[in-house]
Each structure stands twice: as C-alpha cells, then as structure tokens.
C-alpha cells in the first residue's frame, strides 16, 4: 500500500527524509508517547537483566546489589554438581517432551474433525464448548482435577472401583501417574483453543481442490490426506518449530497448582524449584544462577528456531 503513493504526493508531515534534528522535532509528540514505554522497558525488563549479576555474587539484601561480595562462578559450579539441578532440568525437559508428543497432535486432529462438520451451528457449538477451559485459571482447573482424582473421595476413583473393581489410584501423588495427569490437564485446557489457527488455515484452502479430488474419486479420508493436510502443512511446521523454541519453559502456574510434596521427584521443574528454594530459603544467588541458565538456553533455542524458520523460506519472528 505504502509503495503505491508517489513520493511527491506524500504530505510534508510524513516524509522520511530531512535532517536528524528536524525529524526529531517533527515527531516530538510521537516520542513523548514513547517516553513512558521506554521507561517501563528499562526499569522492568532491562534492570532485572542487570540484576542477573547476583548469580556471580553472594547476594544479601542487607548488602544490596552492588555491596554484595563477588563469588565468581561458584554458584554455577555448585549448580552443575548438585543432583537437584539435573533433576529439575530433566523434569523440565521431560514434561515438555510429553506435552509435545501427546499434546501437539490433538488440536490438529480436532481441527480436521471440526472441519468435516457440515452443520455450521453444530461446529460453532462444539468450538464454543472446547474453548471454555482456556479462559479458566489454573487454580480452578487444578482444584477441580485434584478433587475429581482424589483416591478417597474423587469421582474417578469411585467409578473405577464400582465398575472395574480397581483399587484407588493416587493419581496426583504417584510419580508415574502425575506426568500423565499433567499432560492431560494441559490438553484439556489448550487443545480446543489450539484449533483456531488450523481452522483458519483450512478455511483458506481453495474449495476447487476438493472438487477436483472428488472428481478423481477421492473419498473423505483421501481428501483430508491429499488436500487438507498439505493445506495446513506450513501452519503445523511453524507452530511445531515455535513449540520447540519453548522447550525450557514449563507453565509455572500449572505446575505449582498440580504439584505436591510427594511427587517432587517428577514434578519439580526449574521455575518451581527457583520459587521454592530461592524465595523460601532465600538462596537468591544460587537460584538466580539456575534462572540465568534457563534464560540463556531459552535465548539460544529461540534464536535457532528463528534461523530455521528463515532458512525454510518463511518470514522470521523478527
């Protein structure tokens, strides 16, 4: 659009040329809008980045940020030697792998099924139902899950017992069941919501392709395989790559609500560990070192992801 306006018709006020001072003065009101924004980013985004230096100090509140003694790489050495670190790192990665392997395909399948529903009102109804959990706090979702899965009073165990005669299962307090419930709860909350981008991509597929496939005698399944799936391939690829970029993040709110002291061997992730050990035991420097490790790996991941996207010919994230 912008390229279509001949340069000589662009009004004086919007020209991109002129001396630096003239342009600064011309746009002074725009800069005045940005002033609080820049202050916000400096104070609440960049200052904490500077605060990461306490990972290299023995930080104490009384001594302050600058007054605390330097500790070199001591905390990182402690970190890499501690069993805790490898445990929370493993858990962080494992929970991400579970969510990726089991959670990622669900919205795709749901979107494919929804796309085949011919009655528009029914499709919309199902969509509206599926989106609900996305808007509900993890506190509520976790509370409901814990109540329903309780071994003594939960409806799930009571039913299992009545119907199959199975002994109560400690779903939320058993180290093998907990990751399953974690993954399922994530699917419960986000699977429906995750269909939106796929459905939008499917809506953009040319209907003539389906007509052509029908004439060639392709049944529904073959139409899905040969028309719908290729049509959403790039959406799948982008979302998959983006998901890979956040392999170091585990939803803190979700994990905190679902975890309890008896499953910490599988449920303790970097963020909950930092919260518990850092803030409860005031091990500020040590846990900042873990946090810094997480941030740096996260940064490397996202940069690599962006490179992959750009190499594959799509528009990058930045």
């Amino acid at each position, binding site marked *: 659009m912008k390229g279509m306006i001949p340069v000589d018709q662009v009004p004086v006020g919007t020209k991109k040329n002129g001396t630096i001072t003239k342009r600064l003065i011309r746009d002074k009101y*725009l800069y005045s809008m940005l002033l609080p924004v820049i202050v916000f980013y400096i104070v609440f985004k*960049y200052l904490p980045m500077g605060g990461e230096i306490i990972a290299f100090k023995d930080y104490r509140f009384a001594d302050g940020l600058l007054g605390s003694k330097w500790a070199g790489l001591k905390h990182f050495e402690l970190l890499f030697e501690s069993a805790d670190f490898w445990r929370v790192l493993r858990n962080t990665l494992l929970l991400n792998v579970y969510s990726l392997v089991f959670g990622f395909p669900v919205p795709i399948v*749901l979107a494919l099924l929804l796309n085949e529903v011919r009655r528009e009102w029914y499709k919309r109804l*199902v969509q509206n139902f599926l989106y609900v959990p996305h808007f509900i*706090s993890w506190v509520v979702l976790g509370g409901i899950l814990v109540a329903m899965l309780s071994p003594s*009073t939960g409806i799930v165990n009571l039913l299992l017992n009545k119907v199959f005669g199975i002994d109560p299962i400690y779903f939320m307090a058993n180290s093998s069941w907990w990751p399953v419930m974690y993954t399922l709860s994530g699917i419960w909350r986000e699977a*429906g919501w995750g269909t939106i981008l796929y459905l939008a991509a499917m809506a953009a597929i040319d209907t003539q392709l389906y007509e052509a496939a029908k004439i060639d005698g392709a049944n529904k399944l073959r139409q899905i395989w040969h028309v719908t799936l290729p049509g959403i391939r790039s959406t799948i690829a982008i979302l998959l790559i983006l998901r890979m970029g956040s392999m170091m993040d585990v939803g803190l709110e979700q994990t905190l609500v679902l975890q309890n002291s008896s499953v910490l061997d599988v449920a303790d992730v970097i963020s909950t560990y930092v919260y518990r050990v850092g803030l409860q035991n005031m091990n500020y420097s040590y846990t900042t070192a873990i*946090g810094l490790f997480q941030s740096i790996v996260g940064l490397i991941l996202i940069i690599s992801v962006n490179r992959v996207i750009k190499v594959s010919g799509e528009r990058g994230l930045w």
Partner: protein
Amino acid sequence: MVAMNARTDKKRWLPQLGGAINALFLGLFSLATLYPFWYEAAASFSSSRAITSGEVMFWPVEFNIEAYKRLFEDGQLFISMKNTIWVTFVGTLLNIVLTILAAYPLSKKRLLGRSALLMFITFTMLFVSGLIPNFILVKYLGLMNSYWSLWLPALISTYNMFVMKTFMEGLPEEIEESAAIDGAGDWRILVQIIMPLCKPIVVALSLFYAVGWWNNYFQVMLYIGKSNKQTLMLKLYQMIRQVDQHLLNPAGGSEGVMQAMLTPEAIKAAAIVIAITPILCVYPFLQKHFVKGVLIGSVKG
C-alpha cells in the same frame, strides 16, 4: 456422472455414517471437556457427605445451599473478589493505555530510530529474566503489598503490543495524512482518528489482559502478603492447597499453618463456582473477540 449414479447404495451411506460418528465423537469430546465444571456445580449444591461418598455425578444430591451461605457469612471470598475486580479494572486500563502509546508511534515507518526501538523491545521477549531479579526489583522499589507490584511490572505485554501495532499498520494512511495537513498534532490524530478505528482490537486486547488479571494468582502470592488485599484466585488457591500450602508459600508461612484445617468439599466447590461464574457470564462475548485477536496476531506470525 453415470458411473457415479451406478455406484451401490453402500457408497452413499458410508460417508453419512462417517459424518454422524464424527459429530457424535466431537459432541462427546466437548461434553467431556465441560463435565468437570458441571460436576463441580452439582457438588456445590450437594451435602459434603454425598460428595465424599461419590453419590454426586450429574445432579446435586441432598440439595442445599449451605456452602454458599457459609461463604457469604464468612465474607472473605467476596472481599477478595472485590479486590480482583479492582486489580483487573485498573490493570487492564493501564495495559491498554500503555500498549497504545507503544504501538502507535512504532507503527509509523517515518519514526527516526524505529528499528532500534523495535530491537530494544523484541529482545525482552527473547531473553526473559528470572524470577529472583524481578522479585528483588519489586522489593527495592518498595512496591510490596501494593497493587502497583502487580500492575507496574506487567504494564505492557510485548506480544499484545505487536498485535496492536500490526493492526495499526493496516489502517489506511490517507485519513491520517489529511488530518496532518489540517494541522492536527500526533496526539489529536491518535485520540480522535486512530482510536475509533482501533475499537475491535482494543476490545480484543482488553479482554486478553482482563482475563489474565482475573486468573492471576502467582504474582499476588509473591507480592501481596496482607490478607485483606489478596485476590480471589489466591484465596481459592489457598483453600485448595491448604495441606501443602505451608510448604509451598514462603511469604505466608504462619497463615498457611493456620489455614491447614480442611475445608469441606462442598465449600471448595462453591468457591470454584463463584470464581468462574463471572467469566462464564461474559464468555459468549469473550470468545468471539478472543478468536479475532488470535487471528490478527497470527498475521504477523
């Protein structure tokens, strides 16, 4: 065409049967998604005895409103709900104002230093600083126990800001240019011309922000120690996590022990119902705008 007509009836009803199975499956799936909420609602009107013995499945058993009565009498939950409404209202307002103030200038290609500013902002999405430095910052700024500890660090969601910027870049430039020729300043153009055009995206992003505020509990747990300032979700969290709470909440250790009495299931269920009712009331409106917001956001990628 002849060949197609000649096909057996079997070929005709097979796709229809498939469609019916598909519809049935999706129906069951969506009911399964909603069942836990339904169960909680039924439980909240049942006796605690009926809940713990597993008699409640679809409808209240031994119907009563005792749980709601006790929550009303206690009043705590409603104080916290009032706090949540305040936090949500002011927080969302601040978010929207700041998001617009960032997005509008940055949507102007003519702005000197625009790409440097964009890089300055984008970097904060890539390198996310840890919990401890943020906690220490809030403490140093003296924001503890004030709602500013929630609002200030979350003034702008960079992702939402980029969604807004993308939307503004898509507005026709001619309108603005004619206003500029008429001598209107940037502030006036923003308020009188741009803002009305941005209504759909402002609504969508307000809802994004508001739901986030309504559901937030972690920052409240970190920064708001005073019991009478705590929000609905934190109260609910404490109610649900009462057993483990004194282990998990360093800030309110003594309180955790005090609350370690078990709350009856029916009261928990009633509190959950009260907490999600406002969201469900605005839900039809909410999800329409949310979907719009997601789709605008995805254009940029």
